[in-house]
């Protein structure tokens, strides 16, 4: 279908993109922005890892180091990872997988995109105008009294949150109201269940972040006396408010990733997903239980022991649905016809790395262990294993999986495998050693450290360079694919999913003819290979 009209070339000109209401174009623009944010946040990571090569000051002052790690965290969390999968891959494929023409509110979708950009502008203003140095968690009383640019960053994040909420509302209504005839809830792909559960969290949790940041801004300007102890406030209350959003937020980060993983494993094992209903319910369970555990970030902050014990118990519970999912993915592979293409390589690394991240989360959830491990590199390693080893790996899996569909071009499989090796090895070099460092007592967010930790830090920094090389190779072959890649067929991976029944790239209204009544499940592969 080369040369035919598709969503990319259907209308031309910058304005047709800026004012588009096509969910696919919006998804691609989001993709560009989140990848840009990832590179910016990654750059800050390289800068901070470079400083950590030596135990004493290398090239950053203490305050500058604080600013660098704060910006790394804030950019990665708010500009990259929270929107990453839902806004880019989700926007592109949710309507298609539902057999719909578009989301329920296309203009609101466009608004979400430009609200995101507005939020990013505020964040950049903060970066260049006296960058914030509070850590991405903005704890009071430091954040209510430091002289760095807190309010623009906090307002930027407030605005970004609004974009997230509107996307969540859009996705929930689309799933409820816009499914194709015959597509009942339990025939939807698991990516949809994942996006739906994510959207529930987005709508319920993000407003609490919004009010928290607003109160922080007010505390800085008019001094309400709510968080700052000098004014009679309670700093732990800030932490309660902040983590009431930020813990569910990490499930906003991982749930869509799990959805992508389910899609990839089904296609590359040519097998129906094992335990489909349980996978769907576990997504909803994760969304619900995620709201019950936020206090595990406050174990040593001055919370009451009753609350602490309650949160520890609930934290153990939240690992159960995730564990169910890992078992089901592995069970899907059993007796499947495995196709070791690059999306599947990222799937495999997800299973391995997310499991490590998840287990170490349970370690941190244990009260007595957390007393020692809190605010050490063990925590840093844990969350990088789940966020990067989990979400980013899944994001890359989805990107490599759906690239031919989105752009109509193939990329070099060989280059992708080489990049994968650099990314996988680099990631583990950076972060595995941090578990060990942390358990030996190396604190996080310190720019100077005891000389005995230097070998660990050097290894970690070298790993960051290997990781960076991997991403630059990736950038290279993706750009090459866009410019000179082979034309992609409609279904290069032989998947049975609905989105592969559209053209590559799809036309503006997705399906060229009315869909037949859908009477089969989402993973229509032959039963076990006999």
């Amino acid at each position, binding site marked *: 279908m080369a040369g035919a009209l598709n969503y990319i070339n259907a209308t031309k000109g910058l304005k047709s993109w800026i004012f588009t209401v096509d969910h696919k174009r919006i998804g691609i623009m989001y993709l560009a922005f989140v990848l840009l944010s990832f590179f910016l946040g990654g750059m800050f990571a390289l800068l901070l890892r470079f400083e950590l090569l030596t135990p004493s000051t290398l090239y950053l002052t203490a305050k500058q180091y604080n600013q660098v790690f704060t910006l790394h965290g804030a950019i990665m969390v708010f500009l990259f990872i929270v929107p990453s999968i839902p806004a880019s891959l989700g926007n592109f494929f949710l309507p298609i997988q539902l057999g719909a023409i578009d989301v329920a509110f296309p203009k609101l979708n466009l608004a979400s995109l430009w609200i995101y950009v507005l939020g990013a502008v505020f964040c950049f203003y903060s970066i260049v105008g006296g960058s914030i140095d509070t850590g991405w968690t903005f704890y009071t009383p430091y954040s209510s009294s430091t002289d760095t640019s807190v309010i623009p960053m906090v307002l930027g994040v407030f605005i970004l949150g609004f974009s997230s909420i509107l996307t969540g509302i859009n996705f929930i209504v689309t799933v*409820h109201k816009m499914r194709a005839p015959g597509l009942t809830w339990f025939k939807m792909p698991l990516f949809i269940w994942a996006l739906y559960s994510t959207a529930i969290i987005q709508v319920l949790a993000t*407003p*609490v972040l919004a009010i928290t940041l607003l*109160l922080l801004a007010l505390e800085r300007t*008019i001094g309400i006396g*709510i968080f700052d102890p000098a004014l009679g406030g309670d700093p732990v209350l800030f932490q309660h*408010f902040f983590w009431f959003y930020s813990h569910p937020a990490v499930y906003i980060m991982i749930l869509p990733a799990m959805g992508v993983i389910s899609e990839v494993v089904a296609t590359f094992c040519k097998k129906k997903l094992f335990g489909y209903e349980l996978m769907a319910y576990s997504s909803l369970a994760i969304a619900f239980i995620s709201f019950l555990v936020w206090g595990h970030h406050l174990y040593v902050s001055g919370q009451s022991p009753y609350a602490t014990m309650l949160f520890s118990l609930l934290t153990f519970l939240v690992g159960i649905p995730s564990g169910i999912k890992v078992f089901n993915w592995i069970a899907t592979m059993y007796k499947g016809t495995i196709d070791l293409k690059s999306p599947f390589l990222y799937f495999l690394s997800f299973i391995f790395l997310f499991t490590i991240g998840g287990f170490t989360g349970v370690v941190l959830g244990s009260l007595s262990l957390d007393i020692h491990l809190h605010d050490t590199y063990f925590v840093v390693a844990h969350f990088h294993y789940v966020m990067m080893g989990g979400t980013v790996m899944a994001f890359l899996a989805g990107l490599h999986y759906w690239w031919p569909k989105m752009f109509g071009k193939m990329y070099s499989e060989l280059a992708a495998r080489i990049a994968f090796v650099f990314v996988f090895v680099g990631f583990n070099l950076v972060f595995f050693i941090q578990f060990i460092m942390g358990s030996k007592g190396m604190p996080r967010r310190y720019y100077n450290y005891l000389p005995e930790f230097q070998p660990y830090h050097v290894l970690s920094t070298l790993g960051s360079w290997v990781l960076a090389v991997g991403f630059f190779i990736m950038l290279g072959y993706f750009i090459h694919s866009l410019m000179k890649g082979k034309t992609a067929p409609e279904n290069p991976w032989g998947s049975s999913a609905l989105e592969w029944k559209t053209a590559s790239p799809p036309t503006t209204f997705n399906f060229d003819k009315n869909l037949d009544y859908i009477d089969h499940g989402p993973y229509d592969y032959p039963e076990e290979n006999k």
Partner: protein
Amino acid sequence: MSGSKLGNVAHHFENAYQQFSSAKLGMWLFIVQEILFFSALFVAYAVYRGMHPEMFVDAHHHLSWKMGGINTLVLIFSSFTMAMSIRTAQLNQRLQSFWYLGTTLFCACIFMVIKFFEYAEKIHHGYLPSVWFSGEGIYETMHIFFGIYFTMTGLHGLHVLVGMGLIIWLMLETRKGKYNSEYFTPVEMVGLYWHLVDLIWIFLFPLLYLIG
């Protein structure tokens, strides 16, 4: 494609009913997030009232329960007129719908005017948050009460102002005859928003004005 007779159905919807019920669900989800937004303020209120019960009782005497009470009655009445404006739009009674909207707007104005006088009086006597607090009081922490008071009523007032803007827009559209029994979705949506504004005040009033 089956659609409403007046062609108000957007291209990605099958029919007017799907469009209306989607809009309604979307609005309810927006209301859900507003509820969560205000919830943190109520939690903060509960925490600080629990920590400083006598200070709260003392501080609230500087609020006029009569003005707060009138505002409550005004807002409740405006909720009624808002609901009536939806009903009359559904029944093709364009002129009545316009006047019910107008009455709602008028009530909102009364609310904001009374609010203005309340705020002015506080500012005059120095009952302000933190560094600007210069009011009379035996408790050192009184600025916390006023910080919470101004934040809660201020955010609520902001929502009233936004609602007023939306009602003005509805009045203009009603005059042009845009709404009828087939299509009154925007009126219904703004109605839901306005009832939420009323709901928040129903809780704010006793918590701030009627302590002890």
